[in-house]
Structure formats: C-alpha cells, structure tokens
C-alpha cells in the first residue's frame, strides 16, 4: 500500500464529479482527498485525487478513470518528480494571553493571520500535507476551534505537463 496523487483532466460537465467519486465507491478504492476546479479553459476541469493502494489497485484506478467517457487525461503524479500543495484555514482561540504565542507559531510555519477578532485568529497556511499536519500538532489542541483543509493539488515538475 502506498500513497498516490493522481491528476485528471476532465470535461467540465454536470455530473462528471459524481462519475469519478461513484467509481471510487463502487470499486472500493480509497479517496484521501479530492479537489476539482475549472482550468484556464472553462470547458475543462482539473482534478487531483490522493489515494492509497497497492500497485495493482492504483493501476486499475488509472485505467478505470481513463475509461470514463468524460475523462480526457489521467496521470499518476507520484510516478515522477512533482509538487503538491494544500491550503488550510484554521481558526484558533487567541485571547489576550494566547495572542503572542499564536502569532509566533504562525510565523515559524510561514502562515498568515487573515482574520482577527477579540478572541480568535483565522490563520492561512499552505504547504504539503505533512506541513499542515505538523502545524496542527504544534498548536495547543484545545485552542483549535475549526479546521478547513482543501485537500492536495498537484503538478509535475519542470517540463512534465498535463494538458490536451
């Protein structure tokens, strides 16, 4: 079992997302995260799926995805050099006595405070999944009020390009 990050170009059609997610549930594949949004060409969406499975299962996943009529291209980014990023918004308790510490911790992780109230901070942090995990771990758990993560987006390094 290993972690794979799969990038998909698919037609931006109603129902395309449910075909992909339905495929994963129908065939009992794991989905750790799934993100999707239109590309510079509004008729096409780019999806990133993080999954875990044996080599055989991941091979089947890419073949089954390719078989979906609305899927244009599929690539397993983990087969070669790639970059992945995830964004997290995390709301923490930040009253008078926690404020300083919390700001310092955000700075260490190069996170940004993007909303402030009398007793909360909302912090934005971008990085790979492990960095986001590490930030959550580093905080006083009881100070965390809300966590929102986008799931990973991925792209190949250098000249490795996924397009039509």
């Amino acid at each position, binding site marked *: 079992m290993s972690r794979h990050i799969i990038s998909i170009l698919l037609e931006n059609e109603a129902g395309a997302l449910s*075909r992909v997610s*339905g495929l994963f549930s129908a065939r009992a594949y794991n989905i750790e995260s799934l993100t999707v949004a239109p590309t510079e060409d509004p008729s096409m969406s780019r999806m990133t799926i993080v999954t875990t499975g044996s080599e055989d299962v991941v091979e*089947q996943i890419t*073949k089954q995805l390719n078989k979906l009529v609305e899927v*244009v291209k599929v690539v397993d980014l983990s087969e070669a050099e790639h970059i992945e990023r995830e964004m997290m918004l995390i709301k923490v308790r930040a009253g008078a006595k926690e404020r300083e510490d919390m700001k310092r911790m955000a700075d260490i992780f190069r996170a940004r405070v993007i909303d402030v109230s009398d007793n909360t901070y909302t912090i934005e942090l971008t990085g790979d999944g492990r960095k986001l995990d590490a930030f959550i771990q580093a905080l006083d758990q009881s100070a965390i009020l809300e966590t929102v993560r986008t799931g990973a987006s991925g792209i190949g390094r250098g000249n490795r390009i996924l397009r039509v």
Partner: protein
Amino acid sequence: MDRVKGVELTGAEIVVRCLQEEGVEYVFGYPGGAVLFIYDELFKQDKVKHVLVRHEQGAAHAADDYSRSSNKVGVCLVTSGPGVTNAVTGIATAYMDSIPMVILTGQVPTAAIGLDAFQEVDAVGITRPCVKHNFLVKNVKDLAGTIKKAFYLAQTGRPGPVLVDIPKDVTMQSCEFAYPETVAMRSYNPVRKGHPGQVRKAAQLLLGAQRPMIYTGGGVILSDAAKPLGEIVRLLGFPCTSTLMGLGGYPASDPQFLGMLGMHGTYEANMAMQNCDVLLAIGARFDDRVIGNPAHFAQNPRKIIHIDIDPSSISKRVRVDVPIVGHVPDVLQDLIKLLSAEGGKPDIAPWWKQIGEWRARDCLKYDRNSKIIKPQFVIEKLYEVTRGDAFVTSDVGQHQMWAAQFYKFEKPRRWINSGGLGTMGFGLPAAMGVQLVNPGATVACVTGESSIQMCLQELSTCKQYRLPIKIVNLNNKYMGMVRQWQQFFHGNRYSESYMDALPDFVKLAEGYGHRGVLIDKPADVEPALRDAFKRKDELVFMDFLTDQTENVYPMVPGGKGISEMILAEDL
C-alpha cells in the same frame, strides 16, 4: 439526410427522426406521462416500429438481445420514474455483458427536476454505475447531437448501454433539426490497432509453447472475430476453450475445442487452463466464474498474452505478461500475418496426448437409462431436433449450464444468455428480441420453472406480435442451482429453494393464447420437440418434468481453483 433550413421540429419529432437516421427498425418500450409526445410522433410514422412489452424489464432485455443476436444497436424507450427503475435490471444485464444499447427515458419537466415531482427519479444517478455513459438533455438544441453520441458510444470501443434522459418539456420545445454525420470527442478515442511490438512478442511466445491454450470470451462474439479466431486456432493447432459468453465463437464440434471452461466447465478445459505454459486470452476477462481462485490459478507458472479492447480488463484479476489493447479482429489479423510468415506449427503432440487422457474422463456423462427425464437429455434432443442451428436463449441457473454444456454452438450470436449479471427472467424477453431481428429463424428459450416466472408477463407480448418462440421449461420444481449449492455446502437444508404452488404451465400458456404441452416421460421428449418445432406460427410452451435431484457437473466450488472440480463420478 434532408436538412431543411428554417424548419423547426419539436423534441419529440427530433427523437423519432434520430432513430430513423440511425436505421432503427424496432424500439422496445412502454408508454407513460413523460414520453407521451414521443409516442405521439411514433404513431405518426411507420419507419420505426414499436414493440409494446408488458413490463419495462422486458423492454430492456428485448432491446439487449435484439443487439446480441445481430450486432445492431438495440433501442428501448421507457417513461420516467418506475419506467426507469423497472428497466434498470435490464440495463445492468446489458452493461455486464458489454452489449451496445441505447435507452431513451422520459423525465419530468426541467422546472420540476429535483422537486420530488410525480414519477420523478434521478435516472442519470440511478443508472450511472450500470451504463457506459448517460446524459440528461436540458436543451432541445442538444438533443440530436446527444442521441448521435449515444449511438456512437454504445457501439465503439468496449460496447455498452448508453442512456439519454429527456425531460418532457424538451420533447415539446422546438429547434432546427440537423443530425450530425460524425462524432468527435477529445475525451473518447478507443484504440483499434494492437501495438506491433506486443504482437511480435505474442507470436514468439506462441511459437515457443509446449503446452499452449487459447481461451476466448464474449469479446470474440461482440467484435465479430469468429473468422480470424478460427484461422489462428487452426494455424497453430492449439486447443481452444471458451467462456460461457464466448460459446459459438469457435465451432463446438471441432476436435480442437475442449468445451466451456470455468465453474461448470469441462474437465479437459479446466485442466488444460491450469496446466498450460502459454495462454492466449482473447476478449475474455478472467472473472471469478472462469478461473476460480486467482491465487490457486497463479500457482502454476505460465506466460499470458491478453488481447482486449478494454485496458482495464487486462491485469485486473490475473497479472498478464503480454497485454495487447485493441480491436480483437484487427489484432488477430496482425498476429496471423506474423505467424504465417514464420510458418510451421509447434509440435505439441505430448500435450494433446495429455488432453486426450483428460477428455477420456467423459466429464459430462449422465444416466441415459433413467426413467425420469434427465435435463441434459432434453438439451441433447433439442440440439438434434434443431440440427444445432437454433438461436438459444436461456435464463439463469442449472438449465443455463446444461444448455451451455450440451447444445453445441457452431456459430456466433446463437447462444444468448445473461452471463455477467446472471439475471433470472432474461430468457423470454431475450427470445422476443432475437425472433424479431431474425424472423423465420428457430428460437428456443431454455428456462426453468423459477426463472420463467420472473418475466412471464411477456407471453402476452409474444401473442401480440405472433412470435413463434419455443419454450423449453426444465421443470424440477426447485430453484435448481440454489438447491445444488444447498446440497453441497449447506447440509441439504433446502432453505426457500422449493417452489410450492407452481402454476399449471400448460393452462397458463393456453391462457395467454399459446400452445402448452406437458412432458413427463423420457420417450416423449423427442416427439414433443419435433412436434413443437414443426409449428412455425405458434409459440409452444413445453413443460418438461425433470429429475429433481440432478446436479450440474463438473463443479468448481466457490473459492477453489479451477482444477479442483467435483465430478459426477466422485459421488
């Protein structure tokens, strides 16, 4: 195609025009609120004939089998809500066996979608896992293009059912009609040619084989590859077996044919499959009913070449050494060219000697002196009486396996059964579709008293369209296959597999306006069949009272390897 500028057609007119453009002869369907405008247009023309079934499951099966027996795209038309849900079993059946079919479904008006309207169901959502693709048409301008795409998708690549959901208001709106001549989709470009390097590797492996085996499946039938298959099998001189879905792809009476393989395959086919050193798999998918336990199958080392149009069928359950993605006839032609150039077939005499020993076990033998009708005997007589030239449809269970084992199919598209989904109730509507596309042909529906009752209402459709189907009901008063498993694996506890209160099938057939015959003695089997098949204009329901305790042998128990068979002689 006539395209009249400025003349607008309604959505309903467009649907019918599209069917005409596609050359559709028959639509199988059932009317209802959401499709009334389409039915009105069907009424106004006579190019596309409508066949009124008695239940939408029957419509889907009949359209499916119209396609199975002809390789034309079957079309089925049903209304929204229950019309769709009733058809789902038939759609899933076609999907599992990769049958090209187009299903047109009515939908509530676009403004009502999502508001729990009367007879509303999310047709696209409910069928998504059992279609090749589906569409909801929200704008009449997209209707013709979508229907064109549906027909294209259904019959290209790995075929399958495609559903088009049409809201009622779309059938009422109008626009200019233009039926596209071609389809271009950047996301869908099925491969046809096999990779030449892979084909070369395959040829080398085949020529070096000592214990080769050719294993063929439904893909051979679907792609019309019987001719090149026959050529390659004879060219190489190798043994050949077939899955349930591939029967008829290679003539069953040929000595190189080892019979069907799998859970109820012959001893020789299963032993050769397990013990071969080079396996050529063609349009088959190594499913659980074919190779049993994949770990047991993998215990014997062998090189596997796999030709299939669908890459996801390759290395799914069994790791393959030489995958070749492509259209089976094209790949076989390339392979034949290479093999012919090499000349000479490998000497595999010792392997044939071994196969001969396995064959000598005579694994399909049964008691021919029985005083009770043996179901195998009925199928053998059916084969003789129809001179092996009938279209045979079946339902699901013991009778299906006996038909597959004992009716020797010589030609493709003659054996029509639900292999993947295993749908009881399939046989009778299947026979309707087959008879309509092959008028004048001999069509037999081999069934059992449990299966036939699952789509029995179609006897009424058969009457309306004067379909002279011959129903061979192997009546053992049990859900035979369930009973067999209960006998073997559940300590003879026949839980709910006995059918008490069975109807009098003779009276029932007569009630629908057909001829019914009861046969309870072995000596009456052949005369009854001869009499029935002489009646060219009549549906005859033959109710054969057969041995209640007969089992299908050989049998590979679930989870076992295919060489671990139970034979009749073991008991």
